């Protein structure tokens, strides 16, 4: 088992060093206690799921390098007028549910927020498409102190993060039994969102 630990630690160190070198992150100056939120937040490996139309989401690792807690309250982009901050949680029914995060995401000093498929993320409720892999999307993070952090997120094909929605009034677990023949139906119920009985990740990456 000691072998194992060595093997894991080495590459991990290497990748940390690389992150520092490649500078594929966005941030302003850090370490200044009076700095605004946008200048102490770094964004690593930001990306957006490719999509023709409908909805899509964006991910990446946000780190608070400052000494004050910050709150991410909104997101803007030139390709969408309707972007929300979403959290995903286990609703107890065996599938994950997704909802808007009221008040935004708090990121404590020295802490980070991972935006990832199946977890917290930035949700484009609509957009001017198509968003094609290889292009990028401009994103602006807006913090509670009104500071703004702009960066480009690379677009990538991705089979997961198949988003769909439960309207509140539709939030009825009783309908689990009658969706068997509705594979292609775009009714945004939570079953489609779970994606556990889907195509095993070999789909074409299209938006549901």
């Amino acid at each position, binding site marked *: 088992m000691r072998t194992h630990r060595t*093997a894991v630690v080495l590459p991990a160190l290497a990748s940390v060093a690389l992150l520092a070198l490649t500078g594929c992150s966005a941030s302003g100056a850090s370490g200044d206690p009076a700095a605004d939120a946008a200048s102490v937040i770094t964004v690593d490996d930001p990306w957006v799921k490719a999509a023709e139309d409908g909805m899509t989401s964006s991910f990446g690792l946000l780190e608070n390098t400052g000494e004050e807690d910050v709150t991410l309250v909104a997101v803007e982009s030139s390709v969408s007028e309707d972007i929300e901050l979403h959290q995903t949680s286990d609703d107890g029914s065996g599938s994950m549910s997704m909802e808007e995060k009221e008040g935004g995401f708090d990121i404590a000093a020295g802490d980070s927020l991972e935006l990832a498929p199946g977890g917290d993320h930035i949700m484009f409720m609509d957009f001017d498409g198509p968003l094609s892999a*290889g292009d990028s999307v401009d994103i602006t993070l807006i913090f509670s102190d009104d500071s703004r952090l702009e960066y480009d997120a690379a677009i990538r094909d991705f*089979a997961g993060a198949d988003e769909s929605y439960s309207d509140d009034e539709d939030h009825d677990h009783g309908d689990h039994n009658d969706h068997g023949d509705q594979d292609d139906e775009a009714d945004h119920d939570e079953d489609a969102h779970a994606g556990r009985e889907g195509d095993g990740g070999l789909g074409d990456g299209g938006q549901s």
Partner: protein
Amino acid sequence: MLLGGAAAGAGFAALTACTARGDDQDASAEAALLAVGADTVPFHGTHQAGVTTDPQAFATFIALTLRDETDREAIRRLLQVLTDDASRLTAGRGALADTEPELAATPARLTVTLGFGPELVRRVAGESALPSWLRPLPAFGIDRLEEKWNDGDLLLHIAADDQVTVAHAARMLLKTARSAATLRWRQSGFRRSRGSEKSGTTMRNLFGQIDGTVNPRPEDDDFPARVWVADGWMAGGTSLVFRRIRMDLDGWDRLDTPGRDQAMGRRQSDGAPLTGEGEFDEPDFEAIGPHGFTVIPDFSHIARARGDDERPTMLRRSYNYDDDVVGAANAGAAGEAAAGDAEISDAGLLFLAYQADVDEGFVPVQRRLDELDLLNQWTTPVGSAVFAIPPGCAEGGFIGETLF
């Protein structure tokens, strides 16, 4: 690899346990083994990695066909993402949107090398951008080409000293490419594992022959002129001739050692020419034996391969293949062959040759071998492709950018 390392380490410990230094030696042997997995080859540079890189143990070659609707801009996007994926994976990191980044954490000298077929070049920059040699090779008499192994618009050459690393990189790059291209063929090959023998040892093919002795070395004065293209969008790039050469291991089995050595012109045992003592001794094609014939037969492989130019004209970097075969029971059921006659091997060589100009490198040699080479009796080219290997790129750039 971890299992192997652990097992080797344990064996070592058992042998040395009675000495105080045993633990240290154990740890350093283990560290050396783990270094194989952690080792990286820089992705960015004047030339693409994977050409002069000391060949890794495993290589997978994937030829793609561009979809009809994949135009110049779609190709640009594709190449940008492939470049980004490759630069991350070769550094031991997951690609963006990688669902299994854990598999990337062992780079094991991973290289990803892209090659362009004529159709890709045409779609991006038009007919005038085509190098004169970027076309199917002339037909050779010995060829028995099967369409399923030929050509391709875009080549992904993925190689590492760990097969899991290769599989993950291949899967990731294919996921990136599939919106723009479809799979044409995929071929995988292998050499000795890293650490199994001294690095730089000339490979042996599955006939047992040392294969690739006469090869230019990157440190040679004439290497750049022989291998790298000098001008135009391909400056710093090279050409790849990729041939799938089936080897008749059953037929070869019937040939005894002297016959094998005569066919090759070198000894199977140590690779020395029949007129020499060591692998790298210069063959003497004029030397006459006791019966009045040349010691190295005129029909032998090395006599036929040698042209007027004594210097090698191409960089050979081949891989063995030994593919799974349909068993006798299945062959019988399919009516393909009587159960007893079913083949036990589908093996050969993925022959790779790099040169500045295919018509000056591979083609003249192959013309001579096509006319006469005793080895032709046991080797059959069944697949053939030529690719332009564009130059490397700097950080922030992408492979193929000079074509746009």
